[in-house]
């Protein structure tokens, strides 16, 4: 028999993880971010439980600042595969005027993402939140467990993680506590793209290069979708051929100049590219080690 290539090995491991969560946890939920990693995760779920349905709902934490194309894709995609979608938004913070401009990125993320996620998990009494985070994304994630324990306040304690050996995952928790489960832990950005290519997985069109209107300052390309994103000093509004390397909220996700309008071209671009994918995420650079701090507080 031919040996399995690395994508098939990663796939087998992820399916095993998904079946473990579904079998050992009472109320799992899949955190669906609409991004490419979420698309891969949903495909792996379809594979894990085939020919049965995905035995848990999808939860989207909607900050209300996501790209319109993302929301459209979300609604079409989830309807087409017949899965239950739950959307949770921190309405109170939005009513108080939460925007990255008025509140600053840290406080805005804290309210619309971290707090909204914890509230959304509590509202559904979920004991396991399955997410598409990968260990190669950011330095502090390199030490994250596949089954990662969160205390009753939803917080992560990196100095007191449960040892995780072989493929024997510990899913035991007390009421009020929960688990974050990361089936894509061992995937890299390149693996994700190769899998999308091999499996023909649908993704949001924003990932593909197209001429779009952007606020341009040097290398930085900021999309203009929200009314509060206005031209600052030194910025100009231009039509440029660009794409999104990762998807977040439109005011805080920069685009990159690109001609890559197919998955193979994106992979080719990635190979020549020497910047990591989170580099266009404005929120990660607040302070050195800021992702670790956010994660301790409960951020995804």
């Amino acid at each position, binding site marked *: *028999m031919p*040996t*399995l*290539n*690395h*994508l*098939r*090995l990663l*796939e*087998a*491991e992820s*399916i*095993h993880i998904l*079946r*473990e969560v*579904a*079998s050992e946890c009472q109320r799992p939920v899949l955190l669906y971010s609409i991004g490419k990693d979420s698309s891969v995760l949903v495909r792996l779920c*379809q*594979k*894990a*439980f*085939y*020919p*049965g*349905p995905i035995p848990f709902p999808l939860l989207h934490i909607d900050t209300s600042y996501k790209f319109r194309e993302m929301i459209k894709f979300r609604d079409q995609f989830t309807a087409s595969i017949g899965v239950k979608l739950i959307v949770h938004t921190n309405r109170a913070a939005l009513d108080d005027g939460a925007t990255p401009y008025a509140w600053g990125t840290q406080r805005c993320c804290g309210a619309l993402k971290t707090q909204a996620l914890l509230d959304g998990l509590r509202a559904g009494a979920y004991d396991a939140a399955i997410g598409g985070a990968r260990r*190669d994304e950011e*330095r*502090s*994630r*390199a*030490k994250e467990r596949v089954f990662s324990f969160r205390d009753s306040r939803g917080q992560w304690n*990196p*100095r007191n993680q*449960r*040892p*995780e*050996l*072989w*493929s*024997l995952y*510990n899913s*035991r*928790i007390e009421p009020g506590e929960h688990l974050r489960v990361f089936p894509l832990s*061992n995937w*890299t950005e390149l693996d994700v793209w*190769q899998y999308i*290519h*091999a499996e023909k997985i649908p993704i949001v069109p924003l990932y593909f290069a197209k001429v779009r209107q952007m606020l341009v300052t040097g290398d930085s390309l900021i999309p203009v979708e929200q009314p509060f994103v206005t031209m600052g000093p030194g910025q100009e509004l231009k039509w440029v051929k660009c794409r999104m390397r990762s998807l977040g909220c439109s005011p805080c996700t920069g685009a990159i100049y690109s001609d890559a309008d197919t998955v*193979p071209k994106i*992979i*080719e671009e990635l*190979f020549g*590219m*020497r*910047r*990591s994918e989170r*580099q266009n995420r404005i929120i990660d650079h607040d302070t*050195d*080690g800021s992702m*670790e701090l956010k994660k301790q507080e409960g951020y995804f």
Partner: protein
Amino acid sequence: MASPLLIPDSAEQLLIAEDRKELLRFTTAGSVDDGKSTLIGRLLYDSKNVYLDQLESVTKASEGRNAGPIDFSLLTDGLRAEREQGITIDVAYRYFSTPKRKFIIADTPGHEQFTRNMVTGASTAELAIVLVDARKGLLPQSRRHAFISALLGIKRIVIAVNKMDLVGYSEEVFRQVELDFGKFLAQFEDLQPYFLPISALLGDNVVARSEQMPWFTGRSLFEHLESVPATDRAAGAPFRFPVQRVIRPDLDYRGYAGQIASGSLRPGDRVVVLPSGRASRIKSIVTFDGEKAEAQSPESVTLLLEDEIDIARGDLIARAGETIEVARSIEATLVWMSEEPLDLRKRYRLKHNTRLEWAEVKKLHHRININTLEHEPAHRLEMNEIGFIHLEVPRALYFDPYKRNRTTGAFVLIDPFSNSTVAAGMIAGVAKPAFEERASLRPVRIEERAARLKHRGAIVQLGSREGLADRLERSLFDRGFTVVRFRQWAPEWKQALLDAGLLVVVNDSALPACAIETAGSRVDFDESAALPANEVAAAQLIGDALEKAGVFVADPELAESEGI
């Protein structure tokens, strides 16, 4: 430095290469100053797997530290506390790839108190890199790392003698380490060591072969990692399939989902299901992408069987005719990972394959000193200690010894109160009968016997009435009592038999008197109250007398249900 790596120049070329790309998982172990983080940073950097912004962020942080222009260790020391203290405190996973292979590194800290991390990192690895500081030679910690790698079943081990630049690239220094370490490693079966001299800081023999050490003609670390077999999985390994989940989209469909732990199978293969022992055949191997003609470890698939068998999560499907160990009592090597020491009076949760069972560690045979590898008598097992134990579970485990199968031979223990994972176990085999170990030193009391036998001891003497003795023996026996018959009698036996709680029927014509004797009473059937000549009436009379003497113990369950 020139890199031997080929970067494909088109997406098509890249995607073709991807189809053949294998995955190799390895672990690195070294002590605080061995330069392990530097080596990994170097691997990532020289294989062009570091992004510019990550490099800028560590170059920024390198200022003020003493490790050359770029501190490679900053690429890997992820947590703030680690960057501040300059140490690595937890297992970190790193990824890099070449056109031939994708690599997953489990980067583990090397301090003694972090044995648990090393064990964790080694549990999923096929290869281990052990770093030795060329200036210091073979230290106890290097031996520890090699021992733990071997214990966790890793067969390929790279001994990287680092900091060769600081010993003038001396061949003599390298050969001495090779000699010393080689002797030590010889005691582990099947271990395949590869020695190589490197400088992680300067890159010698990491990716490219060093020009400084022409006397070394072996492969560079990179070449070695790209060329060793990526897996030990033997093609002929027995088929093992722990059932994770039963998939039932409708009432007529029962698919058994799981990941193949070892071996391979095809539709039509005869299988047996444990623990029921029921046999069937594979009807089909189902996946989202269609049915498969063959599946192999470690694929995740769903199996349909020809016959309707009751199968649940935790069951195991094996190939018919292949043996597997089945036992409630096992012996295992246990690595303790919790600050709270092992408690022999406590029950733990055991996770083995897809099963969760209660488990008791019955005995700690000995502790293994990880510096000398000697077996030491021990009454405790504390954090980072390794012991050899006897463990029991209420329902039998089906397993292979860890040496033969790293999936079906492994388990973890979970504390039922804190829910944390407290130990990693590697099954050695079925425990030898531990008769004397299980025996309590308390004498067996009369009440304990009575509770089990449902009666107390009594001796019924019937003189020469053999027919009556036959009738009585039969009726007591049929009522479920433990009755013995003596045709010759010696009075000195009486006490021992009463203590043993037996019902004794004696008909010795040399002793004509008829009587019933128990521990606290004696009834004589003499001239004043002779036994009737009619055997049925006589047996009835004896039965009543035994009842009256309190010989029969009421069934406690029966007593409860009747409200007594």
